[in-house]
């Protein structure tokens, strides 16, 4: 299988944060969601791919190239949208385009103008005068205009209105229709990923918890709702995390069948959302 992104045993330490032995792969032609709580290491991974920070160990290959040895080739074939777009604040969008376009051999100006129209980008306006949503739209237009094979987006939907979020997701789905194009999409708004992601990689505290096809994850995990008997010592091993409240217990399980067999009608088993999986795995046990 050909991969758009392969990360092997990646490690990085700074301060009290450690990225530990991170490995995952994104096959070409798919969208991968990188999820995890704030400070989990999502942005660190993206910065490592773009060589904005130095890795302590491991290997990163994008589109078949090593990200250090073939840095220029990789960067010219990756489109990226940072969580806070760092364009040149005092320039107009037209001037930012003028500075950025020459760096990309496949820059398509007609496509840029089409996207600018579609996103209603005010090309004569200074970047710093734009709303966060419009800044994101501009960053996306730039990323798409140089015909990147891999789009890397770091929290692109946070702070965006639901209408544009939906448009963005449609855009990404359309992007990968062109075979060979792939997307790595970091976010903590997991509902976005349930719509479009083919693979989900969950990172917590600098470690990969899982990296699997979305349907496999959603099929494997369930939320169980029941009484306090769920937490009896002999059943605890079935649950990854739970919340106990005045009205009962909710817990995450990867053994829905076994839960059903043990508790029958005394427990309700529902398919877990990505948000629930992330919540229970991050927070562990506690009171609601």
């Amino acid at each position: 299988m050909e991969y758009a992104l392969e990360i092997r045993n990646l490690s990085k330490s700074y301060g009290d944060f450690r990225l530990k032995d991170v490995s995952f792969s994104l096959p070409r032609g798919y969208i991968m969601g990188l999820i995890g709580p704030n400070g989990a290491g999502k942005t660190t991974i993206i910065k490592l791919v773009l060589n904005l920070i130095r890795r302590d160990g491991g290997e990163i290959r994008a589109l078949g190239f090593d990200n250090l040895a073939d840095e220029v080739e990789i960067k010219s074939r990756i489109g990226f949208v940072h969580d806070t777009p760092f364009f040149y604040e005092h320039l107009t969008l037209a001037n930012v385009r003028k500075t950025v376009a020459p760096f990309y051999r496949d820059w398509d100006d007609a496509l840029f103008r089409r996207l600018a129209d579609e996103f209603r980008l005010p090309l004569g306006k200074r970047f710093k005068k734009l709303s966060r949503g419009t800044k994101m739209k501009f960053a996306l237009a730039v990323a798409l205009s140089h015909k990147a094979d891999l789009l890397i987006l770091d929290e692109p939907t946070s702070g965006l209105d639901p209408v544009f979020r939906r448009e963005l997701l449609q855009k990404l789905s359309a992007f990968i229709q062109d075979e060979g194009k792939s997307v790595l999409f970091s976010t903590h708004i997991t509902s976005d990923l349930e719509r479009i992601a083919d693979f989900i990689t969950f990172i917590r505290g600098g470690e990969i918890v899982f990296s699997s096809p979305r349907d496999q994850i959603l099929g494997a995990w369930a939320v169980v709702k029941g009484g306090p008997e769920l937490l009896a010592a002999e059943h605890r091993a079935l649950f990854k995390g739970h919340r106990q409240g005045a009205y009962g217990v909710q817990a995450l399980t990867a053994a829905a069948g076994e839960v059903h067999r043990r508790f029958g009608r005394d427990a309700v088993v529902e398919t877990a959302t990505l948000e629930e999986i992330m919540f229970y795995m991050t927070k562990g046990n506690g009171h609601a």
Partner: protein
Amino acid sequence: MIKLIRKDLILHKKFVLGVGILYPLYLGFMGSRVDNLAMLPVLGGFLYAIVPLILFGREDKFKSEAFGLSLPVTRREYLRARFLLSWGLMFLMYAMGSLLMVAVPGARLAAATVFSPKMILLSLAFMAVYFGFLMPLFIRFGQVGMLVFIVALQLIGVLLMVFRSAVGVTTVKKLFRLIPDGVAAVQSSLGAVPAFLALLALLALLTYASFELSAAFLRRKEF
């Protein structure tokens, strides 16, 4: 390389047109009012050397360096473009400032003196030394690096004054005479042209060392 320089020129167009023109205008006019030749290489060299760094320091302000390095360029190319642009700016400002210094009505310095090979080489030498030290400090510490350099120069000045009062003015003068005497000795043993070329080679070596040190700092820098 050209793309990077073009990017920086678009990005800092107003600054380059503003400071890059006003600064030599100011220095040229001030230089035309004095008859102290030492001002041109010693002070002028320093003032021209900090202009490119003020320009690059603006990227700290806009936090846009991370974006620049996300573009398809290596850090080394990025730095090479900065060195080239800096030297281009310094040359232009020096040329403009020196021209004005002799062209302004009432100028006290003669064109033959300001544009003598010795004066040009001396000005280049001071620019190369200032810029050569400033750039790695700037890459490593940002604008704080420039302040460190300026404070270090002042400390050296204070130390020299203390030294002078301790050993006497004549000893310090003798020490300072060692530099021009050394240059004169090199000139007389090599001949004027080879000595000129040797000094140029030394400046090129200094600039190269400054580039390599800056590149090592930039390679380690995280965004």
